[in-house]
């Protein structure tokens, strides 16, 4: 299998290979859409409840025109922003502390190690019970999901700082604070930003789960409402939009990383 990727492959090195890859890559999704179109026009339960591709496109246009879709996307994104920024503000200093001082690591690592494998969905009922329905439980859930990769990657980044770079800074006259600001932080930055990108992916995953139960707006809520109204077209639009926004967020994160670390692009 790997032999296929050593040639023109996914990098799109060759023009002919690139065009062939595009056709090949489109075949499977087209097949899936075809199967869906076929299933949705059959009789029985499947035909009744499963919207056709045409109905989904029409619903997408309707949601787009009415502005409904936009306001739901905005609600979900703003929640992700608040939860993720909080996770960064807590997670990065925590990771620096745990990476730099053993006692901090020993005090905090056991708790995080225990919490990390618990699926965020498991926290939803308790969070709603404690915080009620609204923005707060959604933000708390996003925070809890996004903080783990940020802390872990920050620790890795801080521990990966080269002694040689610290010594170089010292002999050039840097004090403790300057070593942290001018050596430790830029050294750890690639790892920290990778952690934030992972956290962003998790936050997008969590916000949808949170909106199914904990809050009354956003893409997740739009889909729960659609379920009550037996509107599979709205749900499928939701699924596509969630996927597209998720891809966009990842691309945005990579662009930001390249912007913040120009030395890594070379």
């Amino acid at each position, binding site marked *: 299998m790997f032999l296929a990727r050593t040639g023109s492959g996914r990098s799109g090195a060759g023009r002919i290979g690139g065009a062939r890859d595009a056709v090949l890559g489109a075949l499977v999704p087209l097949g899936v859409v075809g199967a869906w179109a076929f299933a949705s026009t059959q009789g029985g339960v499947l035909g009744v409840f499963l919207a056709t591709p045409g109905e989904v496109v029409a619903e997408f246009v309707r949601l787009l025109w009415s502005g409904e879709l936009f306001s739901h996307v905005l609600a979900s994104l703003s929640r992700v922003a608040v939860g993720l920024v909080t996770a960064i503000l807590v997670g990065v200093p925590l990771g620096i502390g745990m990476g730099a001082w053993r006692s901090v690591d020993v005090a905090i690592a056991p708790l995080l190690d225990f919490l990390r494998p618990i699926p965020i969905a498991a926290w939803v009922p308790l969070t709603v019970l404690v915080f009620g329905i609204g923005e707060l439980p959604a933000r708390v859930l996003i925070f809890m999901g996004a903080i783990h990769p940020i802390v872990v990657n920050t620790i890795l980044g801080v521990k990966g700082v080269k002694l040689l*770079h610290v*010594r170089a*800074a010292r*002999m*050039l006259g840097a004090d403790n604070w*300057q070593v942290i600001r*001018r050596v430790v932080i830029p050294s750890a930055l690639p790892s920290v930003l990778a952690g934030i990108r992972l956290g962003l992916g998790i936050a997008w995953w969590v916000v949808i789960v949170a909106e199914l139960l904990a809050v009354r707006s956003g893409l997740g809520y739009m889909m729960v409402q659609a379920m009550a109204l037996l509107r599979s077209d709205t749900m499928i639009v939701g699924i596509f939009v969630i996927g597209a926004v998720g891809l966009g967020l990842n691309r945005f994160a990579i662009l930001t990383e390249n912007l913040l670390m*120009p*030395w890594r692009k*070379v």
Partner: protein
Amino acid sequence: MRSAPKLEVRDVCMRFRTQGAGSDLEVLKSISFSVYEGERYSLVGPSGCGKTTLLNIIAGFERPTAGEVLVDGVPVQGPAPSRAVVFQDDALFPWLTALENVRFGPCVRGRRESADKWKELLKTVGLEGFDDYYPAQLSGGMRQRLAVARALANEPAVLLMDEPFGALDALTRTQMHEWLLELWGRFRFTVVFVTHDIDEAILLSDRVGVMAGRPGRLVGEIEIKLQEPRSAGVTVSAEFGELKRRVLELLRVGWPRG
């Protein structure tokens, strides 16, 4: 009698505690030598003789078990801008451009100087026009020239160089020797150069301190008097061969005993 030494290493001893071996490992045994203003001093010796440890002690990265190091008569307490280091491995900051690397020292020390001064320094080390390049975009030889420029930017009392050209290919290394000799001719900085390459030590120095290992100690010092300004061509001369013979004798390698 010469003036007071710029750098004085006094009876420096270094022991490392070893796990389970019972006794400590003696890495350096009462090392003493002096380097004078504008002098080029090399420490040459086999791998593991403690020469890098000795340089780290002079730099202030490690504390000796006994003895002391004085720069301009002041005891060394830790790393400081009076002793700039050019490391063996690439120790440039990869996240800073060539110009930002050179400015790092003066910048952290709160000196506000115009970029022109540092552009001029880059030009001096042959990196004109590379101001905005990141280290990863430069060749090995260019990176080490940049490392020397970064060290000189602080105008240190002593420049410490730890096998700075060890990772370069032979031809580039010879070019770097020529370059360093020319640079020294211009600035006359005081430099301590650590290497295991005897030719390099002789070519680049006014005095060579020869070290032996287990425990690391100075076994002799050789004054190098060669025609100035020096050039790499001198390494094939008869007088150079004679100096090399004396170093090899002190090292007791490649020469029949007795």
